[in-house]
């Protein structure tokens, strides 16, 4: 089981809350593809995942992946596969709202800089 919580800081900046933009029609289709692929790689698992959308406060759960399997090796590998694929393939974008009033889209440091006082949010992890 994997849970991604909203942390109160990232890369040294104080985060007040997070905003997830999800393009649902394709996020759902891609999410189902990820679960199907996991099922093919690890035939004996049962897996579910949930991703939140919209504004989240510190401490809220943003993403939840649950995998059950008879053997824990398969459960660990499948859970890892699913969360890694979800984080890179689904059309879901994360915007951090900082305590200082600034905000920025995560991992878009090389994209357009559209935010007032927006500084490089750097490498992310969760």
């Amino acid at each position, binding site marked *: 089981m994997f849970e991604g919580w909203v942390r109160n800081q990232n890369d040294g900046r104080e985060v007040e809350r997070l905003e997830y*933009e999800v*393009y649902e029609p*394709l996020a759902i289709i891609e999410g189902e593809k990820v679960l199907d692929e996991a099922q093919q790689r690890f035939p004996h698992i049962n897996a579910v995942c949930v991703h939140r959308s919209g504004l989240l406060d510190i401490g809220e759960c943003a993403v939840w992946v649950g995998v059950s399997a008879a053997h824990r090796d398969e459960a660990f590998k499948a859970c890892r596969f699913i969360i890694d694929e979800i984080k890179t393939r689904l*059309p879901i*974008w*994360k915007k951090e709202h900082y305590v200082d009033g600034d905000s920025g889209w995560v*991992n878009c440091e*090389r994209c*357009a800089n559209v935010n007032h006082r927006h500084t490089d949010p750097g*490498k992310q992890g969760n």
Partner: protein
Amino acid sequence: MKTITIRYFAVFREHAGVGEESLSLDASTAMDVYHQTQERHGSKEPVGHCKVAINDVMADWSSAVDDGDTVLLFPPVAGG
């Protein structure tokens, strides 16, 4: 010229100032649409970091666009 509906997401949408617009473009591929709208969505991001869908189906940058298609431009996701 083709009439293409373009949908912008996340940082692209914020920069374009609109979520969706219809433009008359001389474009044959999704890549052409990306480049011709680059000034609007403001991205210097190589397309390799972004993704594209046509009519709600994930597509390649080399995919053909037809008159009346909706092209969805996805900036990089949060990833890690």
